[in-house]
């Protein structure tokens, strides 16, 4: 008997910080206990095709437990395959219509001689043949994945186990065989990651969670055909579950300035005294600025909240050597009032929920004050004296704000919010009415009804919009695709622009058409598009394009959808209820002047 006792929690803590790592790795007993909890009797299944060349045994347990945690109202159902036949398994699931396909590849799947069970030769003459097989398998795999991802999202983990000592070189020297084999796998992962609907597990993140030397459990491989040590299986399941259903990214970051965006207290050292460079040992503030700038370039809203005099902050933010340019910050709240009030004003300007926002400050007291007033804001301490911890913070921020792709809307979000704010301020100060602004804004609403190809922005809007959201329902990629593809589903995506610039794609409507009625099950609109009467225009277009007499709304009241409640109350003449209906006659009898020119998108 040997005492192993290796635990990975402490390793994970180093990289992730104490906030997120404590429960990162699940133990087998915890996974089984989660599986004992029965989902509701009417729970829909969540089908997962699990493809591997080995017996997925405990990995399957961990993955199922993670899915139970992610989707408590769904009943996970794993569709497995045959032992040792990853290629056959890939073919068998190709026609399945599951919610997701999870693929675990190991070196032995490229050639059995690369595994411990295959006893084929490792002689020098065999190496070329192994590489040849690996090339062939790689092409075969890519073809299979390209077919598979048309039906469902695919999450892939490429080889994670150490390569057996196949080559003739000493272990400390990388052999050309090893490097070539890894190049084949690396090129395959790159090509797979480029397929839409495919997500590849980040090997570097897996290294942080599961040290390579602890991954392979030889005894388990020989006894049960399951090659992973439990912590490794748990780590892969953890990362794969996140790839299956990534947490919704945060939308806005509010940063403190002194000793956070830069080193030094502006009021004490002056505009030229604050720094973010190596010479003054303040370089990590520059690194933080660089990340914030990069986030802003991907559509994340960045604002500043600082206890300072406005004038000196304006002067400091005008410094040309700032890596986070002034234009990327909106709004900037610089005054001596409480930061919680600054946060309130910023949230109002952004018009987003506080649960989508992160607040960063070097003062625990300021964090506590903001947290008390805005409990849903994620408050993070800026560890100004600890470069290592600041480095860790960068990873955490990427996790909080990361997204799979950057869309056109991401690049115009900040500017459109800024313009909206200016317009509101002009109206508030009596420079024209809302109608005056709309009338002269030269607005265009471009409508698209095409379901093929399905615009990815539509699902993004559905899953991130809270305020103008008919019922708060969220969809996975697979369930959304299934729903939209049904023949009686009607779908409308609206994009808006006016003479001040584009807002991009801002509204999605989807429902079922039955005779002369549409049952609207999904309606979301970005908060940036409020106050333009786009919602009125969308309803009118639905009535006219589909020539229906009535629209039924699958309305559900949520804690956040007050804007759509108010709108429906306005057109219905009473508070909306579940399955409330609006007749065409009723809608047309009370016309609301809209000011957009309506165009149809080129793709229909």
């Amino acid at each position, binding site marked *: *008997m*040997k*005492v*192993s*006792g290796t635990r990975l929690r402490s390793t994970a803590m180093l990289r992730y910080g104490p906030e997120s790592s404590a429960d990162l790795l699940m*133990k*087998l*007993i915890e996974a*089984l*206990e989660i599986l*004992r909890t029965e989902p509701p009797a009417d729970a829909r299944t969540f089908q997962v095709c699990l493809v591997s060349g080995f017996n997925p*045994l*405990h990995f399957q*347990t961990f993955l199922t437990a993670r899915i139970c945690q992610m989707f408590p109202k769904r009943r996970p159902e794993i569709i497995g395959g045959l032992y040792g036949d990853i290629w056959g398994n890939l073919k068998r699931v190709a026609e399945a219509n599951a919610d997701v396909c999870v693929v675990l590849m190991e070196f032995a799947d490229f050639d059995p001689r690369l595994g411990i069970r295959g006893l084929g030769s490792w002689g020098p003459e065999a190496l070329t043949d192994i590489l040849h097989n690996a090339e062939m398998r790689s092409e075969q795999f890519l073809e299979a994945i390209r077919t598979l991802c048309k039906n469902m999202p695919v999450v892939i983990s490429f080889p994670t186990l150490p390569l057996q000592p196949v080559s003739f070189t000493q272990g400390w020297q990388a052999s050309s065989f090893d490097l070539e084999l890894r190049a084949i796998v690396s090129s395959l992962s790159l090509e797979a990651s480029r397929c839409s609907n495919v997500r590849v597990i980040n090997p570097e993140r897996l290294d942080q969670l599961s040290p390579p030397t602890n991954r392979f459990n030889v*005894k*388990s491989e020989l*006894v*049960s055909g*399951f090659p992973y040590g*439990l912590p490794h299986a748990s780590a892969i399941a953890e990362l794969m579950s996140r790839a299956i259903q990534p947490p919704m990214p945060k939308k806005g970051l509010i940063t403190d300035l002194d000793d956070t965006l830069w080193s030094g207290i502006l009021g004490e050292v002056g505009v030229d005294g604050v720094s973010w460079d190596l010479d003054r040992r303040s370089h990590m503030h520059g690194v933080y600025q660089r990340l914030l700038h990069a986030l802003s370039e991907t559509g994340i809203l960045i604002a500043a909240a600082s206890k300072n005099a406005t004038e000196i902050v304006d002067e400091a933010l005008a410094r040309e050597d700032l890596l986070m340019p002034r234009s990327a910050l909106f709004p900037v709240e610089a005054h001596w009032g409480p930061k919680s009030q600054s946060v309130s004003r910023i949230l109002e300007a952004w018009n987003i929920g506080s649960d989508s926002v992160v607040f960063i400050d070097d003062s625990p007291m300021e964090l506590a004050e903001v947290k008390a007033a805005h409990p849903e804001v994620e408050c993070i301490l800026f560890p100004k004296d600890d470069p290592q911890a600041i480095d860790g913070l960068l990873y955490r921020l990427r996790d909080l704000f990361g997204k799979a792709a950057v869309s056109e809307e991401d690049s115009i979000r900040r500017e459109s919010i800024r313009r909206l704010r200016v317009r509101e301020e002009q109206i508030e100060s009596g420079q024209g009415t809302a109608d005056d602004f709309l009338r002269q804004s030269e607005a265009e609403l471009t409508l698209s009804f095409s379901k093929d190809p399905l615009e990815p922005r539509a699902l993004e809007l559905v899953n991130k919009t809270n305020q103008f959201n008919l019922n708060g329902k969220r969809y996975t990629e697979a369930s959304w695709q299934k729903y939209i593809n049904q023949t009686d589903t009607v779908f409308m995506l609206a994009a808006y622009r006016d003479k001040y610039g584009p807002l991009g794609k801002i509204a999605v409507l989807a429902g079922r058409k039955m005779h002369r009625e549409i049952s609207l099950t999904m309606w979301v609109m970005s908060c940036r598009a409020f106050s333009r009467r786009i919602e009125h225009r969308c309803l009118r277009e639905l009535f006219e394009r589909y020539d229906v007499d009535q629209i039924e709304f699958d309305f559900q009241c949520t804690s956040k959808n007050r804007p759509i409640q108010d709108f429906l109350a306005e057109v219905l003449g009473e508070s909306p209820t579940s399955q409330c209906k609006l007749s065409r006659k009723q809608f047309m009898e009370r016309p609301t002047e809209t000011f957009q020119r309506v165009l149809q998108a080129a793709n229909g």
Partner: protein
Amino acid sequence: MDDTQARLVRCFSAVFPSLSREDVLQASTTNVKAWDSVASVTLFAMIEEEYGIEVDVEDLAEMVSFERILAYLRKSNVRKEKQ
């Protein structure tokens, strides 16, 4: 019930959720229908993880009941302390 026994009961309950606490104490491969090869692999993987030990393959054949596994763990702990 000491800590070793209590933790083992938890392991058994996780693998055989239909067994009552009393059933667990009496459990063996002969009287628990669900105790097949997959359950065995799961049970011993969990025991290894929970107790931070590695069970030798040769010893597996002997561990056919709750009682025997408990005895094995107690013996192992004694051995561990001596190391």
